[in-house]
């Protein structure tokens, strides 16, 4: 097990380095020769574009994978994830309301960034609350999933309506946001994101024991002294923070949250959250860095939306899980 962790760590370092060095301007050798001005340009590309972008990919992968794992355990649903249950759409709705509905509050700089983040958390939390309320009554895995998708679609519909009624300038700002990308984040945005992800991860790490007990079922967890209400509350907070922040700054990114925990289970063959949480976080970071690397299509000027790459990688895993869960397995 230790070996697997080390392997994924080495992979992470390699992917991070590759993601920083390879980009639309070709392979960058910042410390190798050349004249002074070329070196300076290389340095600027490195520190203002590539390093922040790689850091965002890292954070997004960590946050999405962790939130997916938390949701799967708390909902006792192997197909739960921030994207499929509509939490990302909820965050989009929050951002849309902020950017389109209240453009006068828009402001600029760090205030605008914080506004986007907070509205995304509120939107994510609202949908999560709805799905949690529904899943308390309906135990059917598929039914909860379909309802999550409905909530997500409803949120998207609201966003469409908002777009229709908004001014050109507000619309432009929102459309740029909604195309989503790991790049283009300011250092301030990166800082907000890092703090949020760290906070969400801390909340999750503090709940590993309760999450393990919840694997047996709520009755068992309660009988061993777990306050199910409290754990739910903490996980609710952590998930909103993690999934909301990513959506706020990178736009909706699908299939990382749902697929990565399953890859972690397959690779590590454990159900213990003390293993699964760090494993998911690590694999999530690896996967996002890899997707970012691929999306830049080294050697060409094209940049694909990272969302398409994550979908292509994640969907086969999800299909496999669906096939397995139809055979009566929970996770």
């Amino acid at each position, binding site marked *: 097990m230790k070996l697997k962790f080390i392997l994924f760590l080495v992979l992470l370092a390699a992917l991070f380095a590759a993601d920083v060095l390879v980009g639309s301007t070709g392979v960058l050798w910042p410390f190798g020769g050349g004249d002074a001005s070329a070196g300076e340009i290389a340095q600027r590309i490195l520190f203002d574009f590539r390093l922040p972008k790689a850091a965002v990919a890292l954070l997004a992968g960590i946050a999405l994978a962790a939130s997916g794992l938390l949701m799967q355990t708390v909902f006792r649903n192997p197909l739960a994830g921030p994207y499929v249950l509509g939490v990302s759409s909820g965050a989009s709705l929050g951002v849309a309301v902020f950017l389109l509905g209240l453009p006068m509050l828009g402001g600029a700089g760090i205030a605008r960034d914080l506004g986007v983040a907070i509205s995304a958390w509120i939107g994510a939390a609202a949908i999560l609350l709805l799905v949690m309320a529904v899943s308390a009554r309906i135990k059917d895995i598929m039914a909860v999933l379909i309802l999550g998708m409905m909530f997500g679609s409803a949120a998207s519909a609201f966003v469409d309506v908002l777009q229709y009624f908004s001014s050109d300038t507000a619309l432009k700002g929102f459309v740029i946001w909604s195309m989503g990308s790991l790049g283009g984040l300011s250092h301030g945005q990166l800082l907000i994101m890092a703090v949020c992800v760290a906070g969400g991860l801390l909340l999750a790490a*503090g709940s*590993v*024991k309760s999450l*393990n*007990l919840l*694997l*047996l*079922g*709520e*009755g*068992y967890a*309660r*009988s*061993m*002294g*777990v*306050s199910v209400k409290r754990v739910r509350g903490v996980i609710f907070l952590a998930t909103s923070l993690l999934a909301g922040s990513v959506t706020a700054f990178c736009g909706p990114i699908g299939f990382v949250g749902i697929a990565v925990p399953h890859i972690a*289970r397959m690779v*590590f*063959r*454990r*159900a*213990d959250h*003390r293993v699964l949480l760090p494993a998911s976080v690590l694999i999530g970071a690896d996967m996002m860095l890899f997707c970012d690397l691929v999306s830049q299509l080294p050697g060409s000027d094209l940049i694909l939306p990272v969302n398409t790459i994550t979908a292509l990688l994640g969907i086969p895993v999800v299909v496999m899980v669906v096939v397995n869960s139809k055979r*009566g*397995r*929970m*996770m």
Partner: protein
Amino acid sequence: MKLQIENIAIGYAQRHADTRLLAERLSLAAPEGELIALLGRNGVGKSTLLRALAGVAAPLQGRVLLGGEDIAGMTAHERARRIAFVTTEHVAVAHLRVHEVVAMGRAPYTGWFGTLSAEDERIVGESLERVSMGAFRNKALESLSDGERQRVMIARALAQDTPLMLLDEPTAFLDLPNRYQIALLLRELAHGTGKTVVFSSHDLSTAVQLCDALWVMTPGGVAAGAPEDLMRSGALDAMFGGTPLTLSPEGVVKLDRPAKYTVKITDTAAISRIAALAARTAERCGFRPMTDKTGETPVAEIKILEEGRRFELTDARNGTAFRVDDFHALAALLRQFGDAL
């Protein structure tokens, strides 16, 4: 520790309706070191009562005392060190290993990360040995049979190291030998460790044979006592009120069916076992078997021939006789005969 139930009412909240009251004014006691089976028909409130005893759902009224202390006044953490509960929840989690499940029983004693001390490890190992699952330590829970899985869940409850252990239908879905083995295991645990063990069950015959006391729950209340006490008082039969089932003094449940006609059984070879089987066959086909002494007029006669290897069915009205080789063919004849009557 002694479990006392004082005047409790149980039930559950319903949507769009008043609270459904399942039982009220229940007072029961379970002494230390006894195995108690909670019996009763579906929907009578066995699970609700167990949940109230476990402190998972508070009773509508009254108190549950463990060692003289009201469990409603304990924190969830304090309760977890006193009451272990094996629920009916089916655990279907991939890659979850047997010792991990049992180690979860130590949760009330470990820190936030759940790290096991050497003492915790020892208790986990001991619990697994006690349920004879020591060899399955590193197996995945998923790979076990239902009986083995139930043993693991019991080991988890053991590792919780509580004076009271509650189990909700631990023998459901198990085959007959497994049901006896689980009940035997619970009996050993109660007598060997001094725990009070209460389990709900639909399996009357194991309960009657292995439990120190039974709590028989009917819509009218709960009758408690040793199996024999409840048989003497007829409280055990109350479970079957309104059904064609009756309980024999041996604790065997029989289906009571009205028989219109009588058949006489003549045992030429005098093998009482074969005669008893022939009587069973007749009963199963809707006839009342009779011995030579009773005064009724039989409609037919079953003769046991050739030391029980052949049977002859004779119509008492006209004397036609048929010979068959086994009970299966005899039963077919009897059914035909019964239809023609």
